């Protein structure tokens, strides 16, 4: 599972991604107009997409999560796309980066859950007190805690393994087919090209999946109790 690249290289590339995004943000918020030009329109479309997504997933109070979800999407997308440009390297192909992102999300989700329910309600929700018979509650508490702990693991490994796998398959195709053919017959055929096209798709899909899962976890953590009961009443 080890990379042949030392970890700090990924940190440098992540820093470059931050820099690109900061320049992007400064460039697009400078000189805002009432009647948006082409560039401002493009940026507003991105923002509105996440605004609609947050409202449809979390509900009306989900507007405050748009910056988090949007930033995660843009950062992960920038990181993933950096892996497709030849001297670049996707910082998300390192478990360090993705685990950091997943921990940010999960810790924020816990903070929001405590803020929405209070500290007692937070633990009550883990045990589903009042929703299930009292004898099952301890068992459910354990299951819920384990599934809560599994969230950052699955979030980070999903993104990491996707990016790392894409890079490994690319590398394998280059070393197994492209390089020998070039050395023997001087035929520069890019065998890795289909995988890189797939990587372009995966870059967008994984960034989207990461940010929408963030929104879903936030929605689960902050759903209102009244709605919950109503939904249950409708279900029965």
């Amino acid at each position, binding site marked *: 599972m080890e990379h042949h690249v030392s970890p700090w290289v990924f940190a440098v590339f992540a820093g470059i991604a931050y820099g690109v995004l900061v320049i992007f943000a400064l460039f697009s918020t400078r000189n805002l107009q009432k009647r948006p030009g082409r560039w401002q329109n493009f940026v507003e479309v991105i923002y509105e997409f996440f605004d609609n997504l947050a409202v449809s997933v979390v509900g009306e109070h989900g507007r405050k999560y748009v910056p988090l979800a949007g930033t995660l999407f843009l950062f992960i997308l920038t990181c993933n796309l950096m892996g497709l440009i030849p001297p670049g390297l996707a910082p998300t192909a390192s478990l360090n980066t993705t685990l950091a992102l997943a921990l940010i999300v999960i810790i924020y989700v816990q903070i929001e859950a405590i803020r929405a329910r209070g500290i007692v309600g937070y633990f009550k929700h883990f045990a589903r007190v009042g929703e299930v018979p009292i004898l099952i509650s301890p068992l459910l508490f354990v299951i819920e805690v384990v599934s809560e702990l599994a969230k950052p693991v699955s979030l980070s490994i*999903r993104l990491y393994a*996707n990016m790392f796998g894409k890079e490994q398959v690319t590398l394998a195709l280059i070393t197994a087919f492209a390089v020998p053919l070039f050395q023997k017959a001087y035929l520069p055929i890019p065998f890795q090209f289909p995988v890189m096209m797939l990587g372009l798709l995966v870059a967008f899909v994984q960034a989207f*999946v990461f940010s929408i899962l963030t929104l879903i976890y936030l929605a689960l953590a902050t759903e209102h109790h009244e709605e919950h009961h109503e939904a249950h009443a409708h279900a029965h």
Partner: protein
Amino acid sequence: MEVGTGLYLMGLALAAGLGLPLAVIGAGLGQGRAVAGAMEGMARQPELAGRIQTGMIIGLAFIESLVLFSFVIFFLLQGRLPTVTP
């Protein structure tokens, strides 16, 4: 080489080679069913296509992540295999 070591390496090589394809078979079947269901839903109710598509992508990501877990295991196992120079 002792028999035990040989058996261990054989099992390791088989596990590294067979684990991922098995996971891919299962996830392929699962993703096929998920996409088929989503497509049917979209055909029946085209006005809900956007929401169904979002749900489908999330479901596909969940199924895919199981394969990726076994992919990580594959790399762990592969790292334990010795390099043999013929």
